[in-house]
């Protein structure tokens, strides 16, 4: 049986992921495309003997090659020609959504229109006659509710039928008597060209008329392509003369005009013009006086949940590691096993990995809150209210979203900069992102704050996050002035309606990102911690984790660098050294060299740090190189070694300078 490939396209926020999950259940995986760097999802589905591959394309408003995501979505449809494309749309915002439908049809894809959120549309008293829409667009239309998994079976059935059909069906749309003959005439020239499979000549002509650079350079390479481009140029000049407007505007007008007519015939809106709940909420959260305080309150709430709710779970994990360690050591003793084996288990594995895994509850909760912020629609508002501030560093509000995502993990945050259209904006946002304190740094704060600032836990940690944001803005300002001078690019972004996040949606989100942390603890951090344990035991015969051990010697070697910052102990230095790999390792190293159990660790820390030097240490951890994964993602996203190296150098220098100021300044002010 032939395998069918179905792509899912749609605007952002229309329920694409929900539909994808409804299709594929748990059998999804995140995959990279050959030659492309965009993260995309692929899943498998079986339906009545058909083997179906489902491809979730990035959310786009159009196929104009405006952002990287649009290029990827478009290239996928053109180059890989999936057997069918499901275009999922928000039924409460049909008119704008159908603009993309028209483009998908023009591209020559076998489109099936899935009207999602029909329940919301009903609530808003919007009546949709899908048969009429189907008639006008000449494609199948299916009503679904992805959240409740309604209509999914029918959608799949219809799509499979559609997948078998020939391409190039046309909607009943005309570009008007002035434009049409030109499109046909140019289309005839394009048909004679040796276009590769998947390219619809009419689409090529339309894109050339719209001055699409990507299509233009593609056509240029083909024999006779230059002649076509020249003809198109002449036509453009001619049309501008007739219409008095450029062709883009004429085409957009024609498309929206057709859609408006379609809407009139097939959609009946009973209640119009009243303030929606979203508008009412927006009045409050984007208010010029209340907006920023409310945002800070949300951030505060986020961290409070992260710490307060997690506390009992952390105690439980700590206790179980102590318990397992005790059992393992007892077992080694009972079989007369060597002492080093007991130490390997207790100090190395349980002490090192355990001290990292104890933060699983924090990290899961943090990702949960971020998922709620994203799914509810508040994230876009945060971008909106920060736009004014971000403009001061030459960025716009949209750059703020990757920064908030950075609180979870800088790696997806840096990948999220792909939604930024301007290259300079994107690079600048990438460079300052590591200063946003990610969840892997949390263990370090929690450990030190618990040991030294028990009474002001929340406040101290919050101050570190704020320091990160402030320095990100400051560095942004400096980079903008020195590296990327020029005007800031335009801010235009949709503010999606507020929606109640679904429990499964949030749990899936939380698990996808949080489980990576567990995986990391079980693999990379485990290996590094074992390595550190060996270093703590070598050379042979040395006292475990003493200054004479290899790790003690390594730490002592670089300790003088950190002396002026207040944490010149070899333990602190070696943990920072290995923390280059990942920030969790800072805690893992301390756990290994100081031994198992939170209490023992805390006592040891109190012997080597003062509250002031502990704070300086946290500041250093906050600011210096986030981890290897971030370095490699910067390399991947900027496609050069220049920027990752630059990031390593500048963050480390910044970390040293700021922690130096904190420590020496603190001493001057009389703190200890």
């Amino acid at each position, binding site marked *: 049986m032939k395998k069918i490939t179905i792509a899912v396209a749609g605007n952002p926020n229309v329920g694409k992921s929900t539909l994808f999950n409804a299709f594929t259940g748990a059998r999804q995986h995140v995959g990279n495309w050959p030659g492309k760097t965009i993260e995309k999802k692929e899943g498998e589905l079986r339906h009545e003997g058909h083997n179906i591959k489902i491809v979730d394309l990035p959310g786009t*408003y*159009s196929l*104009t090659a*405006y952002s990287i995501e649009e290029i990827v979505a478009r290239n996928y449809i053109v180059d890989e020609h999936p057997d069918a494309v499901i275009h999922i749309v928000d039924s*409460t*915002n*049909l*008119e*704008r959504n159908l*603009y*993309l439908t028209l483009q998908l049809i023009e591209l020559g894809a076998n489109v099936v229109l899935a009207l999602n959120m029909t329940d919301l549309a009903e609530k808003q008293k919007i009546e949709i006659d899908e048969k009429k829409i189907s008639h006008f667009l000449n494609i199948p239309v299916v009503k679904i509710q992805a959240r409740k998994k309604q209509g999914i079976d029918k959608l799949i059935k219809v799509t499979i039928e559609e997948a078998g059909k020939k391409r190039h069906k046309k909607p009943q749309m005309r570009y008007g008597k002035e434009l049409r003959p030109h499109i046909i005439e140019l289309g005839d020239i394009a048909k004679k060209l040796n276009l590769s499979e998947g390219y619809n000549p009419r689409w090529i002509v339309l894109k050339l008329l*719209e*001055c699409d650079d990507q299509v233009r350079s593609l056509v240029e390479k083909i024999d006779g392509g230059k002649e076509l481009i020249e003809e198109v140029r002449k036509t453009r000049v001619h049309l501008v003369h007739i219409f008095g*407007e*450029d062709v*883009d*505007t004429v085409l*957009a*007008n024609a498309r*929206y005009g057709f859609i408006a007519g379609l809407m009139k015939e097939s959609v009946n809106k009973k209640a119009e013009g009243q303030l929606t709940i*979203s*508008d009412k909420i*927006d*009045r409050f959260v*984007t208010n*010029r006086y209340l907006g920023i305080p409310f945002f800070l309150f949300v951030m505060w709430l986020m961290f409070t949940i992260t710490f307060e709710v997690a506390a009992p779970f952390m105690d439980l994990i700590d206790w179980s590691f102590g318990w397992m360690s005790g059992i393992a050591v007892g077992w080694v003793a009972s079989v007369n096993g060597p002492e080093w084996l007991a130490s390997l288990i207790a100090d190395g594995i349980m002490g090192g990995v355990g001290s990292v895994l104890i933060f699983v509850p924090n990290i899961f909760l943090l990702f949960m809150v971020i998922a709620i912020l994203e799914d509810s629609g508040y994230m*876009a508002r945060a*971008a*909106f209210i920060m*736009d*004014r501030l971000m*403009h001061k560093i030459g960025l*716009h*509000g949209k750059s703020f979203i990757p920064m908030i995502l950075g609180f979870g993990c800088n790696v997806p945050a840096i990948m999220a900069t792909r939604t930024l*259209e301007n290259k300079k904006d994107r690079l600048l946002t990438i460079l300052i992102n590591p200063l946003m304190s990610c969840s892997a740094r949390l263990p370090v704060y929690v450990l030190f704050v618990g040991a030294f600032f028990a009474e002001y836990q929340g406040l101290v940690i919050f101050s570190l996050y704020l320091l990160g944001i402030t320095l990100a803005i400051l560095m942004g300002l400096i980079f903008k002035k020195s590296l990327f001078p020029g005007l*800031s690019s*335009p*801010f*235009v*972004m*949709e*503010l*999606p*309606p507020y929606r109640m996040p679904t429990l499964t949606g949030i749990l899936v989100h939380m698990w996808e990102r949080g489980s990576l942390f567990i995986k990391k603890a079980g693999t990379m951090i485990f290996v590094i911690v074992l390595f550190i344990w060996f270093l703590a035991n070598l050379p042979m015969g040395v006292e475990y984790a003493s200054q004479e051990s290899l790790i003690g010697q390594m730490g002592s070697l670089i300790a003088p660098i950190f002396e002026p910052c207040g944490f010149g102990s070899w333990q602190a230095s070696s943990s920072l050294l290995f923390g280059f790999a990942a920030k969790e390792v800072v805690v893992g190293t301390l756990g290994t060299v100081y031994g198992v159990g939170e209490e023992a660790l805390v006592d040891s820390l109190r012997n080597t740090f003062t509250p002031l030097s502990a704070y300086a240490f946290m500041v250093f951890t906050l600011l210096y190189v986030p981890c290897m994964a971030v370095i490699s993602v910067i390399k991947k996203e900027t496609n050069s070694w220049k920027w990752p190296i630059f990031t390593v150098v500048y963050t480390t220098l910044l970390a040293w300078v700021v922690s130096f100021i904190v420590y020496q300044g603190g001493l001057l002010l009389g703190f200890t």
Partner: protein
Amino acid sequence: MSMPLSMVGEGKKVKIIEIGGGWMLKKRFHDLGLYEGTEIEVIKNDVTAGPLIIRVLDSRIGIGRGQANRIMVE
């Protein structure tokens, strides 16, 4: 009477007559339903500073003040 979008008060409904700026940006506006002739409603505008929120085709769009200056409406 035509004026820049940035001057329109909250709650007012206006019609776009011209979109200035680069053609890439113009295309983005088209994608979002903003083209010459569209009717839009200003939901939020502090007039002095900061971005605006407008309603167009049942969606809310946040738009920077700089861009709003270059959209002429009536």
